[in-house]
C-alpha cells in the first residue's frame, strides 16, 4: 500500500496547496481590489474637480452677454449715479424683466439666482428666491468685490439657506465699471447626476456640514453607496485632518461595503464646510470560491480544457492503478483463495501468494484452522468415533497395534510383520540402510519410492506449517483392483522405504549446496520427479512479494537420498512421507470402495495417525508404527504395526 498511501499523501498535499493558494489569492485579490478602488476614487476626484472647473468657466462665459447687454449697462450706470432711492426703484422695475428675458436665453445655463449690482455693490435687480430688500448690497462678498474691481471670477456661496456655485462679471460702460452681473446655480442633485455620469457610475453627494444638500446614486451600479450611507460617515469625515486643512481625504470606509473620498469645494463655501463626496462600492471576495464568480466567459473559454481534463484523467488512472495493484488485486486473490479453501480445493491458505496484511490474514486463517482441528481432535468424542472408524474396530483383548497383512484375518502376530527398520528412530547421521529393509510381502505391490517434493515451505511460513512439507510427494501408485474384481487387497506402503528424497523445509534447504560426505550410505539412482501440479500452478501464480521457491538441486536430492542429511530430519521426513503415502492410499481405497472423501483432509488424517501412533508407542513400547491400508467389510481401513526394532 506504499504507492496508494503516497498517492493519497500527494493528493492531500496538492489539495492543501490548492486551498492555500485559493486563500492567498482571495487576500491578494481583495487587496488589489481595494487599491484599485482607492486609486479610482482619486482619479474620480480629479475628474470631478476638472468638471467643476470647466463648469465654472462655462458659467462665467455664459453671463458675458448679460454683462454686455446695453440695457443692463445703462441701468447699472444710472443706478451707480443715482441721487435718490426713487431712481433705484424705477431702475429695478425696468431692469428685472430684462434680466428674466436674458436669463431664459441661457437655457441650460440659466441662473437659479441672479443679481445685477451697481458700482457700490447695491442690488439693483434680482431674480430667484428671497429677493433682497430694497437697497440691500453684496459689496463685501469677495466675488462681487473682485467683479466690481474688474475681474471675472467664480465662487461657491451658502446664501440664504442654499448652496450655489457662483460666477460674476463686471459691467463696463463709458470707460468705467458701473456694476456687475452675479450668476448662481444650485449645488443640487442635477449637478451630482452630471458628475456621476462623467466619472462613470460613482455615487456623488454634496454636503454642507453634516447635511447632504444633493446627491445621486446610480441605479445601474450594484451596491453603490446611498445618500444615507454617505451621510452616516459625513460627521466622521468632517473631523478628518486632511479635510480640515482643505485637502481631499484618504478613502474612507462606507458601511463596510464601499469607499469614499471627501473634499471641500473650491470657493468661499469651503469655510462653511461645503464639499462633495465621491463613493464607489467595494466588493470583496468573502470566500475563495467567489474567485470563480468574477471569471468571465472569456476566462473560461481561454482555459486549456483538454490539458486539464487529460491531466485529471491521467491522475485518476494513476491513482486507480495504485489501488488496483495494492488493494484490489491482492484482495481478489484472497477472495479466490478463500473460496477455494471453502470449497476444500486447497487445505490451507497459500500464504506465499500474499504479502503484507493479506499474508497476515492468510496466516491467521491457517492458524485458526489448525487450532480448530487440534481442538476438535483432542476434545471431541465424535473425533474418537471417527478414529475408530478409520482404524477399524479393535478386538477386545487383542492388542490394537497388531494388524494383519492383506489376505489375513487381520490378527497376525508381530512376527508376521516384516522387519521394518526404525527409520524415525535411527541415530543421527546413520543412513537408512536399504539392505535392512524387508522386502514387501507382495513385491508388485511395493510402491516405488516416492519422488521427493521439489517444493519447500515458504520462508515466511508460520512455525505451525514448518514441520510438514508444503507439498507432499506424489502418491505412489496403488495396486488397483481389476475392474469388477474383488476389492483390492490392502496396499502396503513400503514399511521401510529405502532412503529416498526428503521433503526439506525451504528455510533449511532452499538454495543450500549439498553437504558432501554426510551419511555415506549407498546412493541410489533415482529419477527426478517433476514438481506436482500444485507446485506448477504456484509457479504460474508467483508474483511480487511472494516467497520464491527454489527447485532443489538434484545433487542435493541425491545427497539426501544417500543419507547425507541428519538422521533426525530423515526420520521426520520419512514419517511425514509415510503418512502421505498412507493418506493417498487410504483416499484411493476409499474411492475404490465408493466411500465419500469430501472433507477428508491430510491434516486431519495425519493428526489421527500421530495420535494413534503415540498411543501404540506408549502401550507397546514400540519405537515406531507403520500403517497399512486394507479393505474391511467393503470399507477402507488401516492397520498399525508397531516397530520395536
Amino acid at each position, binding site marked *: 500500500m506504499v504507492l496508494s498511501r503516497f498517492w493519497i499523501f500527494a493528493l492531500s498535499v496538492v489539495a492543501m496547496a490548492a486551498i492555500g493558494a485559493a486563500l492567498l489569492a482571495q487576500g491578494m485579490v481583495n487587496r488589489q481590489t481595494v487599491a484599485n478602488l482607492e486609486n479610482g476614487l482619486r482619479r474620480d476626484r480629479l475628474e470631478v474637480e476638472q468638471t*467643476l*472647473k470647466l463648469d*465654472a*468657466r462655462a458659467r*462665467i462665459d455664459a453671463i458675458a452677454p448679460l454683462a454686455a447687454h446695453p440695457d443692463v449697462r445703462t441701468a447699472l450706470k444710472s443706478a451707480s449715479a443715482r441721487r435718490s432711492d426713487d431712481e433705484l426703484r424705477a431702475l429695478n422695475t425696468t431692469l428685472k424683466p430684462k434680466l428674466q428675458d436674458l436669463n431664459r436665453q441661457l437655457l441650460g445655463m440659466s441662473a437659479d439666482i441672479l443679481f445685477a449690482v451697481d458700482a457700490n*455693490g447695491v*442690488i439693483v435687480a434680482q431674480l430667484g428666491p*428671497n*429677493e*433682497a*430688500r430694497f437697497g*440691500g*448690497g*453684496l*459689496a*463685501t*462678498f*469677495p*466675488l*462681487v468685490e*473682485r467683479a*466690481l*474691481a*474688474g*475681474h*471675472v*471670477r*467664480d*465662487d461657491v*456661496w*451658502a*446664501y*440664504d*439657506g442654499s448652496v450655489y456655485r457662483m460666477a460674476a*462679471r*463686471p459691467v*463696463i460702460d463709458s*470707460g*468705467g*465699471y458701473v456694476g456687475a452681473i452675479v450668476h448662481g446655480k444650485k449645488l443640487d442633485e442635477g449637478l451630482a447626476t452630471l458628475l456621476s455620469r462623467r466619472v462613470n457610475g460613482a455615487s456623488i453627494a454634496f454636503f454642507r456640514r453634516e447635511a447632504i444638500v444633493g446627491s445621486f446614486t446610480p441605479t445601474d451600479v450594484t451596491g453603490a453607496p446611498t445618500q444615507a450611507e454617505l451621510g452616516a460617515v459625513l460627521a466622521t469625515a468632517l473631523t478628518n485632518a486632511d479635510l480640515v486643512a*482643505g485637502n481631499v481625504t484618504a478613502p474612507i470606509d462606507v458601511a463596510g461595503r464601499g469607499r469614499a473620498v471627501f473634499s471641500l469645494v*473650491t*470657493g*468661499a*463655501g*469651503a*469655510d*462653511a464646510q*461645503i464639499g462633495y463626496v465621491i463613493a464607489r462600492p467595494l466588493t470583496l471576495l468573502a470566500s475563495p470560491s467567489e474567485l470563480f464568480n468574477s471569471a468571465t466567459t472569456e476566462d473560461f473559454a481561454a482555459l486549456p480544457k483538454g490539458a486539464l481534463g487529460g491531466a485529471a484523467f491521467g491522475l485518476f488512472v494513476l491513482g486507480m492503478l495504485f489501488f488496483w495493484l495494492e488493494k484490489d488485486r491482492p484482495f481478489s486473490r484472497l477472495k479466490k483463495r478463500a473460496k477455494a479453501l471453502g470449497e476444500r480445493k486447497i487445505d490451507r491458505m497459500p500464504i506465499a501468494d500474499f504479502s503484507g496484511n493479506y499474508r497476515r490474514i492468510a496466516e491467521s486463517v491457517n492458524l485458526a484452522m489448525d487450532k480448530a482441528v487440534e481442538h476438535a481432535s483432542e476434545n471431541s468424542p465424535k473425533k474418537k468415533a471417527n478414529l475408530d472408524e478409520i482404524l477399524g474396530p479393535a478386538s477386545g483383548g487383542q492388542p490394537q497395534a497388531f494388524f494383519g497383512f492383506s489376505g489375513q484375518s487381520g490378527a497376525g502376530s508381530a512376527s508376521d510383520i516384516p522387519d521394518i527398520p526404525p527409520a524415525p528412530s535411527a541415530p543421527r547421521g546413520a543412513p537408512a540402510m536399504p539392505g535392512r529393509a524387508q522386502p514387501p510381502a507382495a513385491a508388485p505391490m511395493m510402491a516405488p519410492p516416492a519422488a521427493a517434493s521439489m517444493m519447500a515451505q515458504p520462508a515466511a511460513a508460520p512455525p505451525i506449517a514448518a514441520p510438514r512439507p508444503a507439498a507432499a510427494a506424489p502418491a505412489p501408485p496403488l495396486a488397483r483392483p481389476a475392474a469388477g474384481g474383488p476389492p483390492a487387497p490392502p496396499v502396503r506402503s513400503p514399511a521401510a522405504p529405502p532412503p529416498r528424497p526428503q521433503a526439506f523445509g525451504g528455510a533449511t534447504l532452499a538454495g543450500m549446496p549439498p553437504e558432501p560426505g554426510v551419511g555415506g550410505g549407498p546412493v541410489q539412482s533415482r529419477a527426478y520427479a517433476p514438481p506436482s501440479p500444485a507446485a506448477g500452478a504456484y509457479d504460474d501464480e508467483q508474483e511480487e512479494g511472494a516467497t520464491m521457491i527454489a527447485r532443489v538441486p538434484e545433487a542435493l536430492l541425491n545427497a539426501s537420498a544417500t543419507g547425507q542429511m541428519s538422521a533426525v530430519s530423515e526420520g521426520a521426513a520419512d514419517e511425514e512421507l509415510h503418512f502421505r503415502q498412507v493418506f493417498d492410499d487410504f483416499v484411493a481405497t476409499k474411492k475404490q470402495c465408493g466411500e465419500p472423501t469430501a472433507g477428508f483432509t491430510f491434516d486431519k488424517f495425519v493428526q489421527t495417525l500421530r495420535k494413534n501412533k503415540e498411543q501404540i508407542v506408549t502401550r507397546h513400547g514400540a519405537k515406531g508404527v507403520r500403517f497399512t491400508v486394507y479393505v474391511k467389510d467393503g470399507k477402507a481401513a488401516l492397520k498399525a504395526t508397531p516397530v520395536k526394532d
Partner: protein
Amino acid sequence: MSDPTHRQRRSIPAVSVPSALLVLSATACVAATALLCTWPLSSTALAVDVKGLLRAPEGYLPAPAADERKPYYWEEWNGFLDPRPRRVDMRRELAVVLLGPPQAGAENRASIQLVGGSLSPSTIVVRPDTILRIENKDDFAHELFAEGLDGFSAEATSSGQARTVRVTQPGSWPIRDRQVAHVRGHLHVIANVSALATIEPNGEYKFVNVAPGQYTIKVFHGAREVATATAQVVESREIVIDPLMLTAPPRPAAAAPR
C-alpha cells in the same frame, strides 16, 4: 500755555473813576452773563478732541501667497478695462483706540452691523463687561460666533434682527459666520480702553472729549495691531496726532489671545 484773558487784563489803560466803574460794571455783567451761559459746559471744559490720519502704504494688501489655496477656479482680468487696485476699507476694517485712564461716563455698550454681506466694522475693540449688539441689516441670515469665547456661540440672526453678546473675558478672538462663509471679523477685549475713534473712508479718525492725560493710540486691523502712538492730552480744544502709517502687512492669521 498762556491765558489770553490774563493778557487782556494787563493791557487796560488808566481812566477816570466813573468811567472805570462803568466799564467795570459792564465787564462784570458781561462776565456774569458769559459765566451763566457757559456753566453747563464747565464740567467738560477740560475734555478735548484727538484726531489724526491713517495711511496705508503701497502694497499694504498683498496678493495671496502662491501656495495658498485660492477660493476660486477662475479669477481673471476682464480684458477691456484695467482693474481697480485692491484697497483697504479703513472705516469697516480698522479700529483705532485710545488706551489710558478710564473716561468718566463711558458706557460699556458697543454696536456692530451686518451689512452688505459682512461685518461693519469687522475689527472690534471693547472693554470687558461690554454688551455687544449685533444688528443684521442684510437680506439673509447670519450666524456669528467667536471661536473660543464663552457666551459668543453661533446663533442665527435673521434679516433685520439683532442679537446681543456680553463680553467679559479680556483677549482676542476671531469672529466667523456659519451661514456666510466669507464673513471675517476680530474681537479685541482690552481692559484700559479709554475711547474708540470714528474712522472716515479717507483714513481720518477722531476721538471726542478725551480727558487730559497720557494715552496710547493703537490701530488694529483684524487680529493684528498695525500702528501705535502716544498722546499727551491737556486742556485744549483739539489735539492733532501725526499721521500713522500702517506698517504691518496684513496676513490672514489669527493672533493669539492677549
